[in-house]
């Protein structure tokens, strides 16, 4: 049997690879970056919502399951440049640095994931212009190293605001969908900061809080046990206070029905999820249908969310839409099974 190609080494791809290896199927894991672990590793995620477990505790066992296995051939720093259908599956061209090799594979799992929204595109929030306006993926690293300090002057902040739905639910940037993670991750960050530094006041500006399902518990705890405050309203713009370095968040408190201009020491943007560059490339190479949002579209998203409808091509993880790590891991398992069945047919 030719190997099964898993494209992408994030949670979904790692999970698919681990399952395929345990089935004894030869697996070719291709990752664009020089390391495995996807976005959680890239941005040094701190604790993972909703259970507040360290990201390492979740990612390391996944990594262990794929490293040093005879069934798994690992290719880091490698991209896919060509894919052609053959009688037994696909013939793919893999490029790393300046060498390109061609390989025969029997099936493909696309686990190409998402990219964080580039917050500079919401220019009114001043990300990239004001050093104390952070993207929440950067704050993850700060919390991870317990160095939550204002980048402008290195001083600890007294009051932090989170702005939800940055680059999500927003036709102005062309992203009308919900990122599903922004609420939970922002609230989790506020909880982590309040746990370690109760002297810092945490405010979350929201339109709706979408800590769906059992994640609601995190939202409730954040209010009841950690005193995180929630203000309803979407911030319109961020400016810098006159003669000072504090940021001013201008918005409407929709509960007060009143305009507000509140100073903060640090403002954190909950940037949304967009289809990853790898996802867009893979869609073109395999001719996979793409929805209006740019995510890959399963043929039957309810009955079989991991099947592309194209024989031999399967999906896993955030390539098909914003997804939490547990869901990505589950889909990795499902895609591994379907790819295995297809390769053995």
């Amino acid at each position, binding site marked *: 049997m030719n190997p099964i190609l898993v494209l992408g080494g994030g949670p979904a791809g790692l999970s698919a690879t681990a399952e395929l290896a345990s089935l004894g199927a030869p697996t070719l894991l291709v990752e664009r970056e020089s390391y495995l672990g996807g976005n959680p590793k890239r941005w040094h995620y701190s604790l993972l919502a909703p259970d507040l477990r360290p990201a390492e505790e979740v990612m390391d066992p996944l990594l262990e399951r794929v490293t040093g296995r005879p069934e798994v051939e690992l290719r880091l720093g490698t991209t896919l440049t060509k894919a052609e259908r053959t009688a037994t599956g696909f013939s793919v061209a893999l490029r790393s640095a300046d060498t390109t090799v061609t390989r025969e594979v029997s099936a493909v799992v696309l686990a190409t994931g998402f990219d964080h929204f580039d917050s500079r595109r919401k220019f009114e929030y001043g990300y990239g212009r004001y050093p104390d306006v952070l993207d929440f993926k950067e704050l993850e690293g700060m919390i991870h190293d317990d160095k939550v300090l204002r980048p402008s002057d290195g001083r600890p902040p007294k009051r932090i605001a989170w702005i939800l739905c940055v680059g999500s639910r927003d036709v102005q940037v062309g992203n009308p969908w919900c990122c599903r993670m922004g609420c939970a991750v922002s609230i989790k960050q506020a909880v982590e900061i309040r746990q370690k530094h109760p002297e810092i006041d945490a405010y979350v500006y929201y339109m709706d809080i979408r800590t769906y399902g059992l994640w609601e518990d995190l939202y409730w705890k954040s209010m*009841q046990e950690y005193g995180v405050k929630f203000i309803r309203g979407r911030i319109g713009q961020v400016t810098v206070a006159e003669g000072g370095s504090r940021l001013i968040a201008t918005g409407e408190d929709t509960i007060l029905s009143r305009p507000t201009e509140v100073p903060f020491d640090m403002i954190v943007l909950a940037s949304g999820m967009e289809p990853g560059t790898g996802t867009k490339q893979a869609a073109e190479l395999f001719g996979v249908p793409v929805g209006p949002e740019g995510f890959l579209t399963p043929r039957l998203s309810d009955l079989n969310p991991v099947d592309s409808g194209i024989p031999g091509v399967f999906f896993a993880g955030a390539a098909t839409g914003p997804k939490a790590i547990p869901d990505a891991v589950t889909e990795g398992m499902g895609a591994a099974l379907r790819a295995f069945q297809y390769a053995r047919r």
Partner: protein
Amino acid sequence: MPIVEKSLVRVDRTEKLELEGIDVSGDWNTFLRSRVWTDLDVKVADWVRAQPGGDTIDRCWQCGTCTAGCCMHTDFGLTEFNPRYFIYLAQIGYEEELRRYAHTIWRCVSCNKCVERCPKGVKVEEVVHTIGSYLERTGAAPESPADRFDRAYTENLLNRGILDEAALFRTYERLEGRKTPTRELLRMGLALFTSGRLRTGPFAHRTRGWGKMREVLRARLEEETRQRRVPVPKPPVGAGGGR
């Protein structure tokens, strides 16, 4: 468009101004105060949380279930009595706005429907009363006609242990600087007389053995007043946690 929010109107009034012998006193300018809310403060919420009965304030997520069933708000039509809003103002520390409701906030009749219905387990009735205590202790509430009436009523009652309606009416008129037309007074006097409640002054009703009772009550009232003067205790830094 008429200005609905009268409290925001600020008038520059010149009481007495003469220019070259011509009286030009009056309202020179009318401004609207800015409605921009510029600060968030955890002070009020921290204090409320630290009191017995106020510890569930952090749970509130502003759904409005309490206000929707509140008998003051709905049945009695006192729409400015809005427990959800009081809690929010305390949460974000908007004291200035909260102060406007310093009297209204005590109109709660403790029917406790809000506590029964709150999906988050906020003890709304207790929290609202605690917010009221905060306003009272910080002296945030200016004395209103209702306050003055309460004071006159209490004094009147303490005097003989039974209410002297005619005396209460006289005191209240004096306090408010009001003058009721004679015809109206006659009409009221007749009604009081026929119902046997015009026994005022030396003819007033008395309660037997009231002297001792009065002493006890006075002592208690003084004690309470003294307690109210105690400054608001400062909660420990970062008391944001806890229920």
